[in-house]
């Protein structure tokens, strides 16, 4: 897909994802401070606006950078900063390329996961967004069609989200709950899953 199609797909997905804002707020309220709903709804709005202001022939990497900047400043929370860094890392993978393929999408996602792990000093099993993002990046690789790739990623992310329930949070605000974090689902991982689902449903 080219830049214009990518931009449209992102905007469609983000318009869709805001319906999950309350769910994310409630999950984050249980483990942290409850602002994830705001991060996602303000962030989605800001990104949509920023993409609309871009010229039609913007490159995919430029689009990803624009998303990063808008999302970072809308509500500068942990999730916003991590996601912005992840998008920037992904955009570097795309370089000057004018289209996005299944493979380059997979590489983008892997770079994004890598960035979050480095910045957040976190790894799979720490009960963070990584528990959904990392397996999804793996699942994207080697699919035959975009639809199949997306389905596999959703499945992997879903499994990852479910697994976070039993984990103890090792990073971020939720880690301060220590053992009390066990039994609760990670909001950041859930946010990533909902984004994938929104992509599927809106496009």
């Amino acid at each position, binding site marked *: 897909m080219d830049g214009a199609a990518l931009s449209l797909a992102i905007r469609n997905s983000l318009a869709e994802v805001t319906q999950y804002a309350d769910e994310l707020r409630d999950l984050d*309220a249980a483990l*942290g*401070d*409850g*602002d994830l709903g*705001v991060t996602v709804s303000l962030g989605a709005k800001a990104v949509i606006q920023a993409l609309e202001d871009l010229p039609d022939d913007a490159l995919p990497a430029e689009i990803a950078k624009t998303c990063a900047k808008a999302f*970072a*400043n809308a*509500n*500068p*929370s*942990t999730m*916003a*900063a*991590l996601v912005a*860094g992840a998008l920037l890392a992904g955009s570097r993978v795309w370089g000057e390329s004018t289209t996005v393929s299944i493979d380059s999408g997979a590489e983008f996602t892997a770079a994004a996961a890598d960035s979050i792990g480095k*910045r*957040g000093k976190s790894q799979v099993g720490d009960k963070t967004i990584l528990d959904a993002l990392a397996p999804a990046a793996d699942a994207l690789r080697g699919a035959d069609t975009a639809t199949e790739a997306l389905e596999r990623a959703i499945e992997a992310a879903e499994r990852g989200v479910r697994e976070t329930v039993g984990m103890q949070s090792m*990073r*971020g*605000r939720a*880690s*301060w*709950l*220590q053992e*009390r974090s066990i039994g609760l689902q990670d909001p950041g991982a859930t946010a990533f899953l909902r984004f994938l689902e929104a992509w599927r449903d809106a496009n």
Partner: protein
Amino acid sequence: MKKLINEPENFVDEMIEGITLAHPDMVRTPRDDKRIMVRADAPRQDRVGIVTGGGSGHLPLFKGYVGAGLCSAVAIGNVFSSPSSDQIFEATKAVNGGAGVLYLYGNYGGDVFNFDLAADLAELEDIETLTVLGRDDVASQPRERSADRRGVAGIIFAYKAAGAAAERGDSLKEVAAAAEDIIDNTATMGIGLSPTILPTTGKASFDLPDGEMEIGIGIHGEPGIHRGVLETADEVAERLMRPLVEDLGLSSGDRIAVLVNGMGATPLEELYVLYRKVHRIAEELGLTVEKRYIGEYATSLEMAGASLSLLKLDDERLALLNAPASSPFFREG
């Protein structure tokens, strides 16, 4: 909701406007978006700048500690939200006097990631920065993981010390070391009695029935280590004091500074009732209270509750605390 506000979206900006209208001789907002507040005399040549920042809703934290002998600038986020890296970077430039800039703020993911980003931007412009994180809340992590603790009211000791060090012309490394030394020797624990209502959502930040208490609560209402029926002030003082004494390894003969901090709605009278018992326990343990701060230093809007911070003193730390300082909300000497 029982709030004296206008449109919730304008709450933070109008509050900042109020502060700058009230104290133009002490602070100013160098940029249009107002989310950055600096000392009226910034930048100061050849003095280390100190930039702090964090969410709104904690007055006098963080904005209140910008002034002579304290921080040089603050980047201000929405209620309980981080400022952006852009804002932090602009604050950095506004106070850079050529001797480098210390980032001194509380250990919260959003803030950390945004300050780190700002540090990268500063490096590109050849402004040297160092970072020291407030992480004094013993309820958030055990001692072994103290690097991961969240930062709460105890950070004001570090503001005071770092500000004094910067004022006397210490180098960036030395100012950072002074702040780090204070933080290593500071421990805090809080108790919450009622939640705060966020202006934007109109919702309570957490759920706590009347007559219950949350021991170890954070300043955004983060859950603590014990929830139960509200105890007497003396019992609460014991519950807060003992873990701090243990955490800092205090023993007879040690000197301490004490901060009894109100979270917002708790009357000053009650803070003094609490202080009374803290003082008595200190006496019992052979600890000498050399400095005490009692009042609202780091709040959580209208949350009812209080926190206790202890700082283990030595001559150097005490001298830094006693150095003159003044901001619209804080005076020493």
